[in-house]
């Protein structure tokens, strides 16, 4: 990876040198806008042309990509793009100064590359971390050139301008942190607390999410707005359940009961098969993977397993049902004749009391009148008789 000369290039220059047409660039910018129509300052209320203008002027940011306890899926996800070829573009949009999977160097050369990348761009580069970091036994469970991963992260991280934790492993531990977590695998933000960190959980996350974050940093100089788990809001502010294409089936009560049954074949809701959509924040319902529509678990008839959520993915068993916290609409059609009118207990009591009081007093009054009349008659008789 070249160093000084390329770092001072603008993105526009870099793309031009690499032979990218303006059309390709605009296509990329359109994809970015589609990825993040809201929540990302770069693309908020912007047209692709406006985004292209902003991005073209920006300087290529330096990126160092570290792998820890990972499966490399998060890097692979970048490669599963072709319209445009994001991996290729990323190389020309950013200056990827260290990436163990994509770089040619190995051994001592690789070590030198890392040291010089960090030293030359100290305080300015973006550190992308892929994979969890083992912390048990002073981090002995993963050594890079003899040093525990924990130390490497701290060293490199201390020099970075910002850290992006790519994938669930780097965000909160991911697969390695599943019970019983023998290595003490954990995410970046439990180790580094004094640098701006953006978590992009997902197993893997959508590559365009990463692109949006990186470009925002390159163009605007700051990281996008994040929630309290440091996840960018533009991609993680909704539940799978809220935008699931099968939501209508859920609302109407149509479910697949077993893999392969009639409901499953009809594409009904997979909630009863243990879908974690109702408790998982991610954008997969609207942006699937591999640039193929419906290329995501639910689209393939497999329930979501909540890979982005620390409390769900690799924690709750695959086919165990979760509680739905979003409101399910009531029987949304009004009945032909509903019921109206309330029958309050207090009111009933009062009316009863009043009726009783009136009835009782009427009876008493009538009795009194009778007796007084009789008394008068008696008196008249005795008076007359007495005479």
């Amino acid at each position, binding site marked *: 990876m070249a160093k000084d000369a390329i770092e001072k290039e603008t993105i526009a220059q870099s793309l031009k040198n690499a032979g990218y047409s303006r059309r390709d660039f605009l296509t990329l910018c359109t994809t970015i806008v589609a990825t993040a129509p809201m929540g990302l300052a770069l693309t908020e209320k912007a047209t692709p042309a406006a985004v292209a203008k902003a991005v073209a002027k920006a300087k290529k940011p330096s990126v160092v990509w570290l792998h820890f306890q990972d499966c490399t899926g998060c890097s692979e996800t970048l490669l599963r793009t072709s319209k445009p070829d994001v991996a290729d573009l990323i190389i020309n949009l950013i200056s990827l100064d260290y990436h163990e999977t994509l770089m040619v160097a190995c051994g001592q050369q690789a070590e030198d590359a890392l040291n010089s990348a960090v030293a030359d761009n100290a305080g300015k580069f973006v550190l992308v971390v892929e994979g969890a970091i083992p912390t048990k036994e002073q981090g002995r469970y993963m050594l890079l050139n003899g040093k525990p991963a924990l130390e490497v992260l701290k060293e490199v991280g201390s020099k970075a301008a910002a850290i992006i934790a790519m994938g669930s492993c780097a965000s909160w531990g991911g697969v390695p942190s599943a019970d019983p977590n023998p290595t003490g695998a954990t995410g970046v933000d439990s180790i580094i607390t004094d640098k701006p960190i953006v978590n992009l959980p997902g197993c893997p996350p959508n590559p365009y999410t990463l692109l949006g974050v990186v470009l925002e940093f390159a163009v605007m100089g700051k990281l996008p707005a994040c929630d309290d788990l440091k996840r960018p809001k533009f991609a993680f502010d909704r539940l799978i359940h809220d935008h699931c294409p099968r939501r209508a089936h859920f609302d109407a009560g149509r479910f697949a009961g077993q893999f392969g049954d009639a409901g499953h074949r009809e594409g009904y809701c997979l909630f009863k098969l243990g879908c974690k959509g109702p408790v998982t924040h991610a954008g997969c319902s609207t942006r699937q993977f591999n640039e193929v529509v419906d290329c995501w678990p639910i689209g393939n008839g497999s329930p979501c397993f909540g890979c982005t959520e620390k409390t769900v993915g690799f924690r709750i068993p695959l086919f165990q049902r979760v509680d739905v916290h979003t*409101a399910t609409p*009531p029987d*949304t059609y*009004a009945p*032909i*004749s509903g019921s*109206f009118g309330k029958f309050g207990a207090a009111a009933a009591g009062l009316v009863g009391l009043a009726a009783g009081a009136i009835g009782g007093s009427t009876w008493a009054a009538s009795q009194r009148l009778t007796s007084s009349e009789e008394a008068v008659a008696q008196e008249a008789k005795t008076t007359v008789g007495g005479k």
Partner: protein
Amino acid sequence: MAMTRREAFKNLAKGSLPILAAGCVSAGLPEVAHAEEENVAPKGALGLLYDATKCVGCKSCMVKCSEYNDLQPDTRQDGIHQAPPALNYFTKNIIKLYRTADGSDHSYFKQQCMHCIDPSCVTACMFGGLRKDVDTGVVWWLGSKCVGCRYCEVACGFHIPAFTWDCFNPKIVKCELCRDHIAKGGKQPGCTEVCPTNAVIYGKREDLLKEAKSRIAANPGKYFEQRVYGEHEAGGTQVLYLSRVGFDKIGLPDIGEASIPHGLHYSHMLYKWMALPLALFAGMVFFAGKNFKDHSHHLVEDQKKTGLRPQL
């Protein structure tokens, strides 16, 4: 001075003559329903035709209605979803669902004001708060004349007008065929504009009636009783209904062909030119005057005897 039996009967006869006359007049009236101009729609009468067989229950009409009429959605059922249980002061137009207990049959029903040709509510309203447009026949509410007495709600045979109960400045809320929106340049009411299947359409009543009848003719056996609801019901309404399922099942009342205000026909006759009341008044003043003179005379006599001030 005690009254003799003869005098008593004479007085009784004199006094009850007007009442008896009224009774005879009202009892002997022939049925004049058909010739009334009450049941003829205005020339430019506009209305809706709702074909329940085409409705898919999407409720876009409810959303559009709220939008064109500046109404908030009724989310009182669960605080989140718009799910009014019936027409109310948030909801001028509602989709209801008829469903058999075993779910084997169902039909949707769009309910809103029927814009009757002889509206009961318009007859009911004291000062013309509810009025029927002379040209289009649309029944609409005029706040400046409304007292909030809710007689229109009691009078409506289709249970349509809604009252804003939870407000100290209440209104009567009901469909007005998007009168304001059309006045501002709209071509049709919101519900018909947005209906994806054209289940509800807008137009002149005579055209809609023709359309409905042609549908019935083209699909023998499809529509309930091969007829349009609203052609004659309650003296005819400007909103017409076609349904596969029985009209009573979807909530359209079995209301007969006479317009509801027709029941007041006899009462109105009694008040014609205020003749009867004036005659009665004159009669009573006459007799009261005679008896009063008599009574006053008595009072003076009593005063002479007792020295107590007479009481009027």
